[in-house]
């Protein structure tokens, strides 16, 4: 798995909604070896400033044949704020593609469950599954403006459902409501892929593990290196024997490897 640490040219920086941005960079080398569910570490410090010190992990959201990669991200703190100030023509260092992405399962319907910006890690996956099998996409958020790129998904499959807590888009309610409905309709085997806030993924896992439906989750953790050097990105294992390392063994794990009782 080749990885590259390159000064990437910013092609586009678009604010899609309040605090939500789409950043597109030119990074053909990274793109060529990227798989769904993988991420990059982006430098956020400006020029020769040394603060903020660490890079920020962002999922590879979208790729284009011309070598461009897009990241879909939310401004939550200093790092993402500084990133959002960067403009086309400027350079941002990008290290990637990193981590173990989603494993593709071909012999059964695949259900993607995304919460909020958790959808950022699911688009490439959805596109890939779409080429070969049955794809169901369920997306949830507080309100419509938290998922401004929902249309990137809606065209991929006719099994597409959205829920928002305030009802501003799709069904009013939670993405787990959509999942419950979907699971009722499904009789045979299925495969779940999920990414979103921890409580949501935990709920999804609990819903499906009872029915022995396998579930892949994409986890987050505070990261310093993104490549397995520091051992900082630990998440407790379900078997009590130590920790998973999100950047190297993940970010995608089988949900039953994870100790969901631990709240980070």
């Amino acid at each position, binding site marked *: 798995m*080749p*990885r590259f*640490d390159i000064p990437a040219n910013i092609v586009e920086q678009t604010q899609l909604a309040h605090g939500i941005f789409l950043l597109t960079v030119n990074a053909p080398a990274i793109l060529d070896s990227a798989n769904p569910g993988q991420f990059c570490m982006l*430098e956020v410090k400006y020029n020769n400033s*040394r*603060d*903020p*010190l*660490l*890079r920020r992990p962002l999922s590879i959201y979208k790729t284009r044949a011309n070598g461009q990669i897009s990241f879909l991200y939310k401004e939550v703190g200093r790092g993402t704020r500084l990133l959002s100030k960067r403009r086309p023509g400027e350079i941002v*260092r990008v*290290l990637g593609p990193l981590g173990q992405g989603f494993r593709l399962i071909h012999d059964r319907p695949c259900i993607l469950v995304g919460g909020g910006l958790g959808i950022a890690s699911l688009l490439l996956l959805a596109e890939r599954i779409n080429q070969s099998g049955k794809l169901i996409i369920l997306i949830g958020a507080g309100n419509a403006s938290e998922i401004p790129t929902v249309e990137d998904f809606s065209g991929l499959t006719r099994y597409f459902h959205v829920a928002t807590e305030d009802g501003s888009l799709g069904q009013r309610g939670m993405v787990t409501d959509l999942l419950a409905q979907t699971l009722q309709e499904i009789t045979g085997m299925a495969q779940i892929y999920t990414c979103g806030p921890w409580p949501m993924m935990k709920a999804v896992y609990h819903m499906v593990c009872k029915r022995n439906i396998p579930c892949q989750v994409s986890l987050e*953790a*505070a*990261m*310093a*290196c993104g*490549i*397995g*050097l*520091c*051992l*900082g*990105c*630990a*998440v*407790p294992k379900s078997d009590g*024997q*130590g*920790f998973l390392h999100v950047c*190297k063994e993940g970010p995608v794990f089988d949900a039953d490897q994870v100790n969901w009782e*631990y709240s*980070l």
Partner: protein
Amino acid sequence: MIHQKNPISRFPNLSINIGPLRLKNPVLLASGTCGYGTELDGLLDLEQVGGIIVKGISIKPRPGNPPPRLVETPCGLLNSIGLENVGIESFIRDKLPWLRNVKTSLIVNILGNSVEEYSEIAKKLDGAEGVKAIEVNISCPNVKAGGIAFGTDPEAAASVTHAVKKATSLPVIIKLTPNVTDITEVARKVAASGADAISLINTLLGMAIDIKSGRPALANVFGGLSGPAIKPIALRMVWQVVRAVDIPVIGIGGISTPDDAIEFLMAGAKAVEIGTATLVRPDTAKNVLAGIKDYMETNSIQNIENLQLPA
């Protein structure tokens, strides 16, 4: 410093001796920030660096601390990894074969909770093919002394040094903790106890609070501070220790640019270790090395040791 321009010095000599250990150049990768080497594959050519110091190894595997284990601070990083590692047996079996084929000096960082543990692990490494030196992390809690770190007690530091020296014929580098009133006191004791070299500094004890949750930001409450923020403290301690002992000193702490490294070499460090900066940018060591070479060429300094300032 005025150096005569001298055309001979177009190819500066960067090799150095750390006691009995010869390094091809003075830029090493610090323990805990370069994994077991393989993790950097394709991102940094390990054969270019002067040496690699693997993640601290204990007798038994250790799971480490619960998360969160990392918080960013101004120009710094707080970590409480909790010395997670695979243990000496798995290290020798699973990691060493790959590492010994890398053409650079392999230094193994070791840790323990008692003098006996340090000694035992040093013995195990004595025969291990490919290991060039041992770096002893004495920032660990001394379980018998109520958990006070070996490195903060000059006597305990001396005992560990003695024991490790006795247990191995490999060169022994003792790595000091900065969380002490007088670093020269510990350094002198360690030198007098037979250490071949001293490296410093390990991380400074720090903490952060997550004001949203109203809890310490690290599950372990305290963590070790590293990164550019600590450089002035590290440099001061290196300067002091260089002037207090006769054995070689390796400088560590916040080095991320060639200029940073040159400051430590000027202070009298024979070599430097790059820690947190590798986490931020995997090829930092390469860039630091290139910058040192440039500086030497520009200033016509033929030998890296000539960088050192007069005491």
